[in-house]
């Protein structure tokens, strides 16, 4: 699943290691950066994202907190107001919901209401494919995309995971950083050397193609790449845009791609209604209407909770097969 095989000379890094490396570098660079969350210290986080950081930076900068998502994010807001750069972990992205008010009403509106911005990151593992059931598999990013004042990021590759967490920590505004748990140990990259920062707000074209644009993010980027290989063998040349930042969207890249291909599929693992795909489709329908040669298609999870049992979860999750089917229909439109 790596984009290109690592050259023998330098070792490659997994997605989870890349996040850790990004956080570590930022903590070294800037002593205002600190971590807080449930089990992030001694245990290194439920998915070991912060493993080793307690030993390196001490208890004051890697805080094991009580089981209190609102207090965790609230404390991050307060610390950010004091000039710190907190990085708060939600043990699963599903638990962002427990801090919903603090995120959307306190953090997001602080700068606008009072001029005092709150540079903080709230991060956590999202997504399915690991049989986590209804409360350990959700993709809640769209819940937050309706909130002016927030930024939202989700990396698909190890290199982006590092570059985006660093950008998120440096950002002057609150950034929600969703990590796809399926990717933690399944994708790896040889990371660029030096201070590798991926700017928030910039999408990446993962594959150039002439026939249609697949706009996606997170684990679904890999699904799209798989599908594109199949489609290519059928003579369909798909372009794949990895959004990387979901708020604000990189309209320039999105519009340029659809402007070239005239056909768009928005692909996401989150459920359909009210997902990020709705916003992208709406912008395309408003701003790229003349370029569109076909309906804008959404390939997403259906409107249900995430089921637990493997055959149910498989039916629920979008996959390359479902995507290919949609792409074939669209290409033939």
């Amino acid at each position, binding site marked *: 699943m790596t984009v290109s095989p690592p050259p023998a000379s330098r070792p490659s890094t997994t997605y989870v290691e890349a996040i850790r490396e990004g956080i570590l570098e930022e903590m070294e660079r800037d002593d205002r950066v600190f971590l807080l969350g*449930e*089990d992030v210290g*001694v*245990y290194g986080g*439920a998915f070991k994202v912060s493993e080793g950081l307690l030993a390196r930076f001490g208890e004051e900068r890697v805080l*094991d*907190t*009580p*089981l*209190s*998502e*609102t*207090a965790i994010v609230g404390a991050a807001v307060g610390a950010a107001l004091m000039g710190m750069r907190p990085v708060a972990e939600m043990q*699963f992205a*599903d*638990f962002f*919901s*427990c801090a919903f008010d603090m995120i959307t009403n306190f953090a997001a509106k602080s700068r606008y209401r009072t001029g005092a911005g709150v540079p903080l990151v709230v991060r956590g593992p999202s997504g399915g494919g*690991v*049989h*986590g*059931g*209804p*409360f*350990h598999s959700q993709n809640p990013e769209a819940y937050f995309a309706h909130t002016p004042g927030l930024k939202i990021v989700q990396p698909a590759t190890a290199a982006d995971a590092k570059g985006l967490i660093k950008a998120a920590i440096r950002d002057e505004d609150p950034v929600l950083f969703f990590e796809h748990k399926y990717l933690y140990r399944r994708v790896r990259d040889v990371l660029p050397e030096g201070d590798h920062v991926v700017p928030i707000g910039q999408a990446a074209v993962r594959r150039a193609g002439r026939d249609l644009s697949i706009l996606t993010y997170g684990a679904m980027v890999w699904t799209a790449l798989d599908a594109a290989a199949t489609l290519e063998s059928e003579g369909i040349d798909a372009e794949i845009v990895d959004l990387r930042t979901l708020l604000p969207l990189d309209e320039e890249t999105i519009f340029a791609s659809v402007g070239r291909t005239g056909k768009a599929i928005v692909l996401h693992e989150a459920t359909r209604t009210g997902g990020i795909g709705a916003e992208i489709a709406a912008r395309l329908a408003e701003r790229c209407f003349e370029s569109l040669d076909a309906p804008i298609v959404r390939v997403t999870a*259906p*409107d*249900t*909770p995430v*089921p*637990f*049992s*493997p*055959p*149910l*979860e*498989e*039916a*629920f999750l979008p996959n390359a097969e479902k995507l290919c089917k949609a792409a074939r229909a669209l290409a033939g439109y």
Partner: protein
Amino acid sequence: MPELTRQQRIVLYRHMRTTRLVEEKLVALYRQGKVVGGLYRCLGQEATAVGSAFALSRGDILGPLIRNLGSVLVMGFTPRDVFAQHMGKASSPSGGKDGNLHLGRPEQGVVSAISMLGALIPVMAGVALAARMQRRNLVAMTYIGDGGTSTGPFHEGMNFAGAQRLPLVVVAENNGWAYSTPLRKQTAAKSLADRAAAYGIPAESVDGNDVLAVFEASARAVDRARAGAGPTLVEAITYRMKGHAEHDNQEYVPKQELEAWIRRDPIEAYARELGESGLVGREELAAIDREISAEVEHQADLADKDPYPAAERALEGVYAAAPITPRVAARERS
């Protein structure tokens, strides 16, 4: 509170032993890759779950958490239900929609938890509220861990129950740890019972590894609730003898602490007590164990053979079936 009969004392033992054996079988199935997702055990906490739920009467309502396998068995769920649920089978109480102990059946008096800790407290307060409105003299019981008591929903639900003087019993299982977080990092409160003053409700701390003590404290709380005297917080002091879940080797736990608690295994202690008091002989207990063991194997086998749900079930049950409008009905009839 009448004395427990010999028969009841044996039932307590059976539930604890069944809990233990079901879990051991689950571990085996987990290693075979047959358990879907994570496996959360309650090793060492069997007495708390069984003793508390046993204080309920028919018609009462229980809201279990993931470490309350014993309570679920007391409420009449079968090992097969539990195995099927863990294996994601169509026959499971959730039909494969949810896992571990997220199971419930209203008609069986069990409300299913969600993962978000604390959320069940206000819900069970609502159960108690409804029961009072319905003039059903029933009691609602639920659980919370030491970690869970730090959540906002726990606070709001407890305070609501106190203000409304609801028939609710909350068993706070103080097992010393919330995942890797020890109690002293969780709160500066000296005990979970100390949380009760904030709600103006009584609290009692009890040895959570002593099934009879848990039963008695719970029964007192249930009686109080049924008499209209409002909610009670029962703190059961116990210990999580395994990691948070099977993947967690609990390296962070001090060895001595763990060993000391292993010596206080609630099932062994109760078996000794039954034997020493002359109530149930060693032989009889061994026979019970063999019987349960066979039954657990049998039920695991049944669950193992149960089919997985059909894929199309994934799309069903989000909303109530649309009411049949006359137009649709006419169409269907023709």
